[in-house]
């Protein structure tokens, strides 16, 4: 018997003319690991919510077709009952915590199952030992790091012992190390305990080795990863390379892991020439940071930072969750003031000018796009900044570059997470600042949207603007950055050209760099260019 079965399922949100998912059919057997992919706004979250019945019980709207999950019909069974079989992990762990301490959070679902205190205690001790949570069990959830929060959410769902676990972009807010740890945990739950896993994600490179089925919602097809992913918008680097090399008559099969690819590529390695590391051309200094230190509640977050940003340079700042990246960039336009040290932005000190004045020089897009959105339409949202700063941008062109032209008359909050991110970015671009600073701009975006954004930002650097991006996305950094800075515990541990910094970096290494450790390649393009 199949664990999940969808038969010609279509769903319309209340008052919507177009279905959010249209005629979807697929099935998942017990113990399978299904990856759901598709472009931003294609209905991945809606589909996942159909599995546990949140759609349509919670959302309302109209549903057609038939769904069976663990022998139940979630459209007719109360969600509470489906919850005994299906665990659900949402994108943002912060928003799904119900209790205030880790232990209470782990107990919450078990209390709902009406288990005895002894049984709850036993299950808590099992999951906390499995996920290594014993040392934080009495901590408040607000005191946890991003990786710990996501682990607690996963543990609290798994403590209920569901047969299926559904995860909606669970790694989108995690650094590469925490994301890998989470995926390894999922993989061992899947292989050791036969847990059926359904996961939607945009960062496919790391998920790909673990999955045995892929559903592409853009084309409505389901199959083996090696059949579906090469044609998907989010094709992983190894499959992309395999596809491109095949055109050049080099067959490396469909490698799932770097080690597999290495074996298949061994006899062809001589055909690849090493890439020369270009030295950075330093332009005019536009931002100068000297001896910057900042502490919060007695904890030093930034420690003696000395840094310059140059005109026309694309800089990416990377580091683990809590390394001090966001704190650093918030100093650039005066959102934070240093405890010690100084900052100069085009000759202006952010300490002496209001943020509104600095906005003419520095455009800043924070992590949460929802903080920007309040206008009735996407166009108005973009025009608002232009009015405030008396700038004269070509709004139509910005909308076009961000692929938002067709959505310009829609209410921004009706858009998907990735699209909202693009509106927030657009609302800063209309201020026409010379320096653009972004905190995790590609979060929740599909591969195409990321490429579009990177091309747009590259266009800005070509025009002489300075771009500073904070991201966890190694592939985006490798593709875009002229220069990469790595922060660790408030200290700069690496600063230089992208190839030099990422090459052989254990924490921030691309799949392609792992595959060609001696060739200085970071991206598929690098590998193809190096081929003789």
């Amino acid at each position, binding site marked *: 018997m199949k664990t999940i079965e969808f038969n010609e399922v279509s769903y319309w949100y209340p008052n919507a003319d177009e279905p959010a998912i249209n005629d979807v059919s697929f099935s998942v057997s017990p113990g399978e690991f299904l990856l759901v992919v598709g472009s931003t706004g294609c209905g991945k979250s809606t589909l996942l919510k159909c599995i546990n019945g*949140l759609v349509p019980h*919670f959302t309302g709207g109209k549903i057609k077709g038939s769904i069976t999950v663990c022998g139940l019909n979630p459209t007719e069974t109360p*969600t*509470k*009952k489906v*919850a*005994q079989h299906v*665990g*659900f992990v*949402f994108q*943002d762990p912060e*928003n*799904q*915590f*119900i*209790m*205030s*301490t880790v232990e*209470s959070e782990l*107990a*919450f*679902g*078990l*209390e*709902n*199952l*009406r*288990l*005895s*205190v002894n049984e*709850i*205690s036993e299950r808590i001790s099992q999951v906390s030992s499995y996920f290594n949570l014993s040392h934080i069990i009495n901590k*408040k959830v*607000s005191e946890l790091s991003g990786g710990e929060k996501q682990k607690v959410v996963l543990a*609290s*769902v798994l403590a*209920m012992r569901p047969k299926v676990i559904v995860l909606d972009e669970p790694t989108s807010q995690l650094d590469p190390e925490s994301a890998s740890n989470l995926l390894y945990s999922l993989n061992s739950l899947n292989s050791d305990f036969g847990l059926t896993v359904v996961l939607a994600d945009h960062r496919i490179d790391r998920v790909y080795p673990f999955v045995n089925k892929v559903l592409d919602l853009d084309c409505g097809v389901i199959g083996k990863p090696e059949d579906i992913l090469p044609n998907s918008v989010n094709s992983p680097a190894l499959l992309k390379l395999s596809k491109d090399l095949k055109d050049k008559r080099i067959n490396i099969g469909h490698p799932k892991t770097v080690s597999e690819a290495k074996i298949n590529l061994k006899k062809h390695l001589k055909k690849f020439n090493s890439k020369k590391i270009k030295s950075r051309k330093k332009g005019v200094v536009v931002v100068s940071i000297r001896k910057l230190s900042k502490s919060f509640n007695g904890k030093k977050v930034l420690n003696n930072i000395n840094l310059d940003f140059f005109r026309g340079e694309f800089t990416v700042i990377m580091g683990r969750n809590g390394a001090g990246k966001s704190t650093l960039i918030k100093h650039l*336009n005066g*959102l934070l003031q240093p405890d010690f040290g100084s900052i100069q932005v085009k000759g202006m000190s952010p300490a002496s000018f*209001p*943020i*509104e004045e600095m*906005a003419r020089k520095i*455009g800043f*897009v*924070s992590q*949460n796009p*929802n*903080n*920007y*959105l*309040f206008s009735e339409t996407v166009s108005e949202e973009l025009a*608002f*900044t232009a009015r*405030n*700063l008396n700038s004269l941008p070509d709004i139509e062109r910005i909308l076009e570059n961000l692929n938002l032209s067709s959505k310009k008359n829609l209410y921004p*909050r009706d858009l998907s997470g990735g699209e909202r991110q693009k509106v*927030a970015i657009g609302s*800063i671009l209309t*201020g026409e600042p010379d320096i653009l600073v972004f905190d995790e701009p590609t979060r929740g975006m599909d591969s195409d949207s990321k490429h579009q954004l990177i091309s747009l930002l590259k266009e800005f650097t070509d025009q002489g603007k300075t771009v500073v991006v904070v991201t966890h996305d190694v592939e985006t950094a490798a593709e875009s950055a002229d220069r990469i800075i790595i922060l660790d515990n408030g200290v700069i541990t690496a600063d230089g050209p992208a190839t030099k910094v990422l090459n052989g970096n254990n924490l921030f290494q691309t799949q392609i760099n792992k595959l060609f450790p001696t060739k200085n390649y970071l991206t598929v393009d690098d590998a193809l260019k190096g081929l003789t």
Partner: protein
Amino acid sequence: MKLKFNTITWTAWMLTGATITLLSNNPANIILLSLILLASAKKHHISTSNTIKAAIFFSIPLLLINVLFVHEGQHILTEIPADIHLIGIQIPITPISGPITLESVSAAFLFSILLLNTLLLFTIYNKETSIDNVLRLIPTRLSHSTLLIAIALRFIPTITQDAQAVTEAQRCRGLIFQTGSLANRIKANSSVMIPTFVNSLERSYVLAEALESRGYSKNRTRYLKEDWSLGDWILSFTYLLSITYLVSSWAGFGFPYWNNPELLFSLDLRVLMTQMFLLIP
């Protein structure tokens, strides 16, 4: 060795402290209570600097109101005239005119200490107990309400942080909040209020989805797994007795200084006895 006490014991501890704070107006006892609470905070490694700062902040208006409007007492420090002369103009200040007395200053000081004691009590109580365990003490039939309170309490700092983040985002778009016409200022503030409000709604929507997908229902068990030691029995019983004794003493005889502050500085031994128990956990 630091003993770990049950949430019920800590609740009884907090109620005893609150009873002393509310019923006793004896300056010596109240100052001693502050010292006991500060010692207790230190013992539990709880930082009290912010609590003291908050108490000082709220004490300033207390002192001003007392000094300007309470003119009772025999020890006159100075006198506020009925009018003042400013650039040759006589301005009447009759409502605040009268003597500034040592009694009114000491009463303001006393209220400030009372405020400090209240804040210290709750700071220690919050640190030593979890809100989840406190709410689990409330009867099952009120479970919806207790969950609502727990979520609301968790949301207060989140909404404050949200409002701050939205303000920052809008300022980064060049929005000026403090200048311009009233209509412009209202419009500018709506750009903060709307996203903050909608963010809160969206967050509560996700939280409701999380509750639903984790099978929340009224009919649930309670995981209150705390040890109930002999020490908890003894302490809780002692606190219960102390509260009964303090309330009956107050109702029967009244404590000194309850109605009018006087400048008498001697410890009330009845209160002192119960205060010392607060040092135990």
